[in-house]
């Protein structure tokens, strides 16, 4: 209330209509509302939120214990009790998928975070500094690009050990070059835009310009790439799990579930197919979100 009064009294002669700064939340709502009206976007968002919820609080989504074996129920087909059926030790697959989300999502998030940090760092530095530093950093990125991703990941995983974190690091390092290149291109593009020049002329330091103008505006394509790579990281992690570099059993990330279920493709296809379809759904949803956001921004 007080602000309103102040506002009215402030505009001395002509009464100025009430004006309050909109919060960021309000602006976000306005930006997202038209997207939410698209059924495809909402559905994709639901799938991704489900995966995130599963990662945060899997016990809300399933009443079964993920690791309790039940030899009598082994390899039972999907039913009302076991939505995704059971695996070779009689564990409820749906529950394992839900609990697997924690590891997979964590690994993917960590991988993307590593790639983001590294990529943004290299990209911003190269784009901003230019000259020799730029050339040196870009050659480093070229080198990383030239190394086949999975082999690099394999080498890193064997160097630092099995498990979720090493896999995430390995995958993350593999996707650094993409981030670095995108960030650099964006920084180079935005650096020359009139509003950055205007900010500089307005007395903003390079750091302030970087933090307030360049990074937030470069963020769009980078965020889209991050969303895409989040999906790619899930797939890459799954690929490594397939080769036998996964989380410590009995915990199982999605890749491990698909990979270990593949032995039953002929006799009990759901053991591999349903986790597989779930992963496809999540990654596809992520891709869809990224694309929708990108198209919306354009």
């Amino acid at each position, binding site marked *: 209330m007080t602000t309103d009064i102040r506002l009215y009294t402030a505009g001395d002669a002509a009464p100025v209509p009430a004006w309050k700064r909109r919060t960021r939340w309000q602006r976000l709502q306005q930006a997202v509302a038209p997207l939410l009206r698209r059924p495809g976007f909402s559905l994709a968002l639901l799938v991704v939120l489900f995966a995130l919820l599963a990662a945060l609080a899997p016990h809300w989504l399933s009443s079964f214990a993920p*690791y*309790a*074996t039940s*030899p009598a129920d*082994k*390899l039972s*087909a*999907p039913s009302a009790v076991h939505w995704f059926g059971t695996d*070779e*030790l*009689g564990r409820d697959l749906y529950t394992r998928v839900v609990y697997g989300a924690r590891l997979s999502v964590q690994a993917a998030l960590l991988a993307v975070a590593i790639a983001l940090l590294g990529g943004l760092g290299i990209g911003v530095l190269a784009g901003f500094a230019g000259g020799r530093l730029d050339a040196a950093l870009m050659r480093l990125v070229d080198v990383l690009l030239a190394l086949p991703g999975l082999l690099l990941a394999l080498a890193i995983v*064997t160097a630092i*050990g*099995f498990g979720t974190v090493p896999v995430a690091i390995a995958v993350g390092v593999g996707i650094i070059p993409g981030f670095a290149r995108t960030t650099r291109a964006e920084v180079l593009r935005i650096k020359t835009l009139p509003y950055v020049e205007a900010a500089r002329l307005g007395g903003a330091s390079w750091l302030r310009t970087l933090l307030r103008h360049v990074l937030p505006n470069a963020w769009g394509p980078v965020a889209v790439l991050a969303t895409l790579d989040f999906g790619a990281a899930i797939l890459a992690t799954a690929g490594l799990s397939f080769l*036998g570099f*996964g989380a*410590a*059993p*009995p915990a199982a990330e999605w890749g491990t579930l698909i990979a*270990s279920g*593949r*032995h*039953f*493709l*002929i*006799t*009990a*296809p*759901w053991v591999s*197919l349903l986790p597989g379809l779930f992963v496809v759904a999540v990654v596809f949803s992520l891709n869809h979100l990224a694309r929708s956001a990108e198209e919306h921004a354009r």
Partner: protein
Amino acid sequence: MPSLHRLFAIGALALALNACSPADNNAASKTLNIAFWGDNTTLVSVDPFQVYWLEHRVLLRNVAESLTDQDPQTGRIIPWLAKSWEVGSDALSYTFHLRQDVTFSNGERFDAHAVKAAFDSNKAFATQLPATFGATYLAGYDHAEVVDDFTVRLVLARPNAGFLQATSTTNLAILAPASYKLSAQERSQGKIIGTGPFVLEHYTPEVGARLVKRADYAWASANVSNKGAAHLDAVEISYIPEESVRNGLFLQGKADILWPRNPFSEVDLKLFQSKGATIQSRSLPGPALNLYPNTRNNRLLGDRQVRLALQKAIDRTSYAHTVYNAEFPVVSGVYDVTTPYFKAQADKLAYDPKGAEQLLEAAGWHKGADGYRHKDGQRLTLRYNLTPAESAGDVLVQDQLRKVGIDLKLNVLTRAEWVAGNASGNYDLTSTYMTRADPIILQTILDPRAANSATLATNSYEPQTLPKVQALFDSGITATADPQRAAAYGQLQDLLVDEAAAFPLYERVWQAATAPRVKDFRWTAEGFAFLSDIQVGQP
């Protein structure tokens, strides 16, 4: 889901049709297709002396032959390339009288010189690379004496009760002298010439091998009913690491024998049987699939009570029936049943979770809020090192132990890390196995003086037990009479179970599924097959 089912139903139907189609090229040319699991990628070699990979030994059994053979039923050593033999009274000299009608596939004559060449070059290789697998078979061997062209005397420096059995193995198979003129590496890549019913045409690592029959073959051992040349023209061996692909090939009729390392799961078994396949099974001689504890350095398993509780907490019946199938034998001792001097310990290995819990309570381990047992603020966590990946059975055991409050950590490692872990004693449980139809093979695992990993062998026993075990091993190897050996190895098996120095998990049954058109599949004593007996025809 229904659509999925339909898709795969169509697939299965097509498979069935394919499997039944009689007009197959293979039938006409009498080629047998064998699908093994993946090739050994760590040691790429088909040199008999170096090979420990079971699949390669199957191949070698049919290419290279040995002085003796072993009866798969009784375990007795019977003549093969040697018609007869005498063992010196000191058990240090073995005189073999050789067959005189045997030639190598390159035309060279098989005689005492060839045997001497084989044993001497094997010994030379073992000296150069003491780590090589065949070295254990050759233990104690000193030199060979050519008595006459067809009589050779092998002289040992110290007694080795298993030596006669060793002469029946693929590892001491006799290659042509020409083969020993080549380097070990060339032999490893498939340049081997033997006296067997088949000739190794080529070996391509990780892809496969091809054997072709030798028309003039006529010196089979008594184990083989077909005394002449093989019925088959050729054998195509392929290494297919992907289980579903391998099974698919078999179901499609592209493989006649499906022969993976691990036993079939129940669903696969039923599927194959429903398609008319026969499941061939044989327990592999040698130790069962045992876990070996680390009792030293104040590790938790240093407490015998805890070890005994662990022994009781493993539900071996459930293991065999869940991971494999209802007919699968439940492991009943530290050796597999096909090992000579096997002694069953089924009652001591019974599942008794209550007993396990009582033992653990008595040892001071009490259940905490997390469902696991604790003592002095420490959780009862056991670290199980395994490589290259965990099996469903490992996970099942993990869950079984969880029920009595033991936290089993499945520590999946690369082979390198696993080896390093064994050597440094950085584990609570670890597992390894060897295959040989003589109880002596356990020494390569559990006797620190002869084991591949002395650390692993030492760590398996509490300090006071080790001398007792070594004494039993010694009496087993020096005894020349059967009853003495039986007594020594019987006591050894009792001791290992009583002291819980080994935790058997399952009987190492080797299973192969043979297509309906495959007849007369027969196991050797060590769990390989004589392919010359096999006939292929209309199902």
